[in-house]
């Protein structure tokens, strides 16, 4: 049964490694839902967060094939319940209709979003949350005129992660 899995990969910083990792998904004809990379809590160790929708058997195989790469220190996968995760979304909204009343501002407040910048013709709104939440706000804002919308890849930390941290710092 298909399910959402978050794959966390800890690696050395080396040119082309992203390419090497993504070929493993390409080989299996599997699309990547989202991807994020940044330096981890350990200096020089990078963390990839990849979200896929597939069955557990396949994700297991993929994770092992990722972990086998020379410059990969560790790769693990989790289901949503085992992680805390967020995505950040930015919305560029036309102010033409929005300025007619203060409904928009209320919408933004009620959705725990905030206005980052207010310009003559548009404003930039930021919301952090799960995909459904940023999606929902997008739907709310649509009638006012969305000029641009962008959402980041998922970042995620693992709830029972002490052991993992130990392994990363002591590898």
């Amino acid at each position, binding site marked *: 049964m298909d399910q959402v899995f978050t794959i966390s990969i800890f690696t050395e910083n080396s040119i082309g490694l992203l390419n090497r990792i993504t070929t493993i998904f390409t080989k299996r004809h599997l699309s990547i839902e989202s991807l994020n990379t940044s330096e981890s809590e350990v200096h020089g160790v990078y963390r990839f967060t990849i979200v896929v929708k597939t069955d557990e058997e396949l994700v297991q195989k993929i994770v*092992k094939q990722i972990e086998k790469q*020379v410059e990969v220190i560790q790769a693990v996968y989790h289901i949503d319940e085992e992680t805390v995760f967020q995505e950040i979304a930015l919305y560029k909204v036309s102010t033409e209709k929005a300025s007619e009343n203060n409904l928009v501002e209320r919408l933004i407040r009620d959705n725990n979003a905030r206005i980052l910048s207010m310009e003559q013709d548009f404003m930039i709104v930021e919301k952090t949350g799960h995909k459904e939440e940023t999606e929902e706000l997008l739907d709310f804002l649509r009638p006012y005129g969305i000029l641009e919308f962008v959402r980041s890849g998922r970042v995620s930390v693992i709830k029972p992660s002490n052991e993992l941290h130990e392994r990363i710092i002591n590898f």
Partner: protein
Amino acid sequence: MVAVLEKSTETKLRISGAEAVVRSLLAEEVDMIFGYPGGAVMPVYDALYGFQDQLKHVLTRHEQGAIHAAQGYARATGKVGVALATSGPGATNLITGIADAMIDSTPLVCITGQVGSHLLGSDAFQETDIISISMPVTKWNIQVTKPEELPEALARAFYIAKSGRPGPVLVDITKDAQFAEIDFNYRKCEQIRSYKPIPKLNLESVKKAAELINGSQKPFVLFGQGVILGKAEQEFKTFIEKAGIPSAWTLLGLSALPTDHPLNVGMLGMHGNYGPNRLTNECDVLIAVGMRFDDRVTGDLKRYAKQAKIIHLDIDPSEINKNVKVDVPVLGDCKESLSTLTSLINTNSHPEWLQQFHEHERIEQEQVIKPEMNPQSAELTMAETIQQINKVTNGEAILVTDVGQHQMVACRYTKFQKSKSNITSGGLGTMGFCLPAALGAKLGAPEREVVAVIGDGGFQMTIQELGTIFQTQAAVKIVVLNNNFLGMVRQWQQLFFDKRYSSTELMNPDFIKIAEGYGIKGKTISERKDLASSVKEMLEYDGSYLLEVCVGKEDNVFPMVPSGASVSEVRLS
């Protein structure tokens, strides 16, 4: 203090990046490499010129020839094979061999020249992004743009290629990095922090495996190339002998156990033997050693050994549960895991179970082997040719095969006494592999007889390497089993496509004349009366020799597990 300083200046060597490549190879005890020159790798070639007495460069006729020769060399010697090529087309011509080495776990270091670093990404002449192209088919690769990074990159390359589960690596070096000078200082790589080539053996799982084996009535061992790569032939033999387990080989496991060993029950898979295929679905414990349950071995997975408990010994964690769900995985170097396992199992024998293999063998003898060995038809068969070769070589030769019917027949019938004696393209099934691989094997193991058995189709894929055989005077014995067809494809067309022989018939040239053009002695035969004497003549001849054997045009290879069928459905006709 002064003394130390003096010493360090003494060992300091100021040389070009290109020379650093050559000296790095020497530091890794490489004495032979295979390659083809071109613009972006010329500095390395220039450096090689000064080291000809220490490092032999074999100039092939095509980069594909170079890489397959390096593979043959690696498989025959157990050492790392090295291939050298220029940028662009030189590098891309290596790809088939790299992919082949990846899937067959052959240790290779490929070195490619690259355009100058200031030109990278500009679509310069003969620029190709070989790093991206080779990524999915290399164990590791790296582009070097700074000469001072060269020694470490090469040290890592050798370490990665040969450690753990071996594989091909590629080092791409820009031309400016080859020209620039560095202070050369080489240190072999002994570890990489993110890389754990050998998983630690878990004693608990070995114990579980031993329990299963000790309680088993019908244990069955499948062994692959892991036994050879792990240099564990002796440990393997001791293991199966102590527990008395019938053992069957994959195409790449062949020669790890002598053919006439009483527990060697034959070949697995699509064109494997009758007993090993059928009895896979009757054993109670299946012990896989250094093999990867390739689909050509397993047939339909839904009907594969479902009745059995499965133990899998492998060095690569990603192989566990990849194709077949395993009950007891034993991760580790099989030299260690096998000896530990042996110490925990009971001395045993399974005569009735072994007898079942013999009964299947008798059926196969009657229905397939005898008719192939003593054919009624006037035409020669592939099987009787191999039989004649066996008579002269006594199982001492290295057999190199290409891909197709002749490969299956040669692997089924050739007798082996020694390990590392079977060289073939297993996982990728690369036609054109044989001739250059045989050349590499002969150059790597000149003391051994090397017999290349090739189909008339595959021979013409890398026939130009006759030129390299000519130039190196490598005494490769070449047997072309000529059926005037792309035989294996024709067989499928006959069996599964209503005999519609679409583009499989070949109009062949005069192979003997071609050989003669390259200064290689040759002979063609089509009659039984000439077979024994011609095979003998070829093998006794001092130098390379091409024997073309014209065989039945529409002969088929059996047994056969049709693709998608279960191993139980193996057909004898």
